[in-house]
């Protein structure tokens, strides 16, 4: 299964804002330098932005795509719609939506961890579930109640 972003959305969005300041193209090392970050610290954000189709990476340069520009220009509802359309198409979320539908729209977090351990034995399933919940909430694909540890389908699933 293809990966999903493993960093926070506002970090990805901050990266896009900086790219926009640089007219849509800048060397990744230059941004890291400016923010006094190690390039390694920025990699999850770069990977996430690329995975979402917001940037292209070309020999060290980060290039803002039309989709990235559209995301930046949108209000919070439009941004969520873009995230929803993008993440709903990933194999991981497609699979998860199907699992939830098969179970009548509810699954415990433990159950999802167990399913993922079976399906993706090389991955730290508990960590992955944390990111699935965070991005699933952002994209309105999932709802999660941490009291009962229950995952449900979101408004736009």
């Amino acid at each position: 299964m293809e990966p999903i972003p493993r960093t926070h959305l506002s970090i990805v969005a901050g990266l896009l804002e900086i790219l926009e300041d640089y007219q849509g193209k800048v060397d990744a090392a230059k941004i890291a330098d400016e923010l006094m970050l190690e390039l390694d610290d920025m990699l999850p954000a770069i990977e996430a932005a690329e995975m979402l189709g917001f940037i292209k990476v070309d020999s060290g340069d980060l290039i803002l795509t039309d989709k990235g520009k559209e995301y930046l220009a949108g209000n919070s509802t439009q941004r969520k719609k873009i995230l929803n359309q993008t993440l709903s198409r990933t194999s991981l979320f497609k699979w998860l939506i199907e699992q939830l539908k098969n179970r009548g729209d509810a699954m415990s977090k433990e159950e999802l961890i167990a399913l993922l351990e079976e399906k993706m034995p090389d991955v730290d399933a508990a960590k992955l579930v944390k990111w699935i919940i965070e991005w699933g909430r952002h994209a309105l694909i999932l709802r999660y109640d941490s009291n009962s540890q229950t995952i449900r389908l979101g408004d736009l699933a």
Partner: protein
Amino acid sequence: MPLLELRNVTKSFTSKTARPFVVLEHITMAVDKGDFVCIVGPSGCGKSTLLRIICGLIPPSDGQVFYKGVEVKGVCDEMAMVFQSFALFPWLTVLENVEIGLYSKKISQEEKRRRALKMIEMVGLKGFEEAYPRELSGGMKQRVGLARALVSEPTVLLMDEPFSSLDPLTATHLREELVDFWSNPNLAPDTVIMVTHSVEEAVYLANRVIVLSHRPGTIIKEVPVDLPRPRDPRSDKLYALVDQITSLIA
């Protein structure tokens, strides 16, 4: 008449054993509707104390604060505050934390919920209504802090180092969102007063930067920032102002 006016405000803390400890001295300043004022100065110069005096959380030892010509005595409900530490209630959900911002409003619980949900959507937190602060990143926690402050539609938003505990990319994004809220005439707030230790941040955001001295904090200078918006955070003009202000503090 300015929206907000401080006349000769002094704050000192006294105890029976030690000499009085003067934090702020002779602060006289005015803030107009629509202003974006940043207050900078060395650490310990009383920047945060000044914000708390402005909104009536603590009284000045001497001098007065006027809001729309009326002396501020006690917490003024046309101002709201955002804190560096977010100051969320860990046992309440995002929705409940935002509803707290409407605590003193005489409106029904349904109306509070409706307004809180709308505000949550505007700060990009839709989908996280039932989350608890512990489930959120720093950037999202500060969005909750912002939503709680803005849900009461305050005229003046006071911000105490709101971005300094966030990673630099998140801070970049939230600064843009704050400017969007402030510059949109249909949305609160009209007026922002922000304390920051980052001179770059102050010059990037503000119409006017107020520079405080070492303790006791006094106003050294008010620097107008006339750069057009949207601003380029890397422009030479911006950096020239940053250098000018930094040399006043150092």
